[in-house]
């Protein structure tokens, strides 16, 4: 079973627009992490939001966490072409096994 899952397989936006990727999870967590993977590269962490936090920001990125509904979102404002990538949520259970979603492929159109 998928313990973490993004809600969309793929989406596209025009440069400058805002976009939100949603994630649902099915396990107890100590934190929820968002990663980005560009073509030909390994995933890189964007934001880590702990289970006692509701919102976290990192520049143009904003993540929210709702532990009651077991869901999280990642919003990107003023998108740029270089934001084109696959975005993953990952549940951190505190026991060294991170469960990754299958990812949402974001394309930013110039």
């Amino acid at each position, binding site marked *: 079973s998928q313990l973490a899952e993004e809600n969309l397989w793929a989406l596209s936006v025009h440069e400058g627009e805002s976009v939100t990727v949603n994630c649902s999870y099915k396990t107890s967590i100590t934190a929820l*992490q968002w990663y980005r993977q560009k073509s030909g590269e390994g*995933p890189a*962490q964007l934001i880590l939001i702990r289970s006692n936090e509701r919102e976290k920001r990192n520049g143009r990125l904003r993540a929210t966490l709702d532990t009651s509904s077991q869901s999280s979102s990642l919003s990107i404002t003023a998108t740029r072409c270089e934001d084109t990538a696959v975005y993953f949520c990952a549940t951190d259970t*505190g026991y060294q096994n991170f469960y990754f*979603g299958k990812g949402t492929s974001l394309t930013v159109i110039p």
Partner: protein
Amino acid sequence: EAAVTQSPRNKVTVTGGNVTLSCRQTNSHNYMYWYRQDTGHGLRLIHYSYGAGNLQIGDVPDGYKATRTTQEDFFLLLELASPSQTSLYFCASSDRQGINTLYFGAGTRLSVL
């Protein structure tokens, strides 16, 4: 910033072949991981280690062995490769137990013909 280096970047072998994927991290992290990434499945944990000589089983360990020879080096071994092991393999490291960041290498694309 953490540096995780994987080699080779690409590998082609035949069914039944013997393959070793290498990973080195240069940031003194205790934990190292091997993941495979497949379309429709995302990233799945094969094995991980919290120090030299230690090995922990992940979620999809069948057909894989791993060995952590030093704090820096973690190897993934496929002794009888099968086409089902055709995948993109990532090594990652993290510095401690509990909430922490995974630092990934650039990946090794393996094709088993």
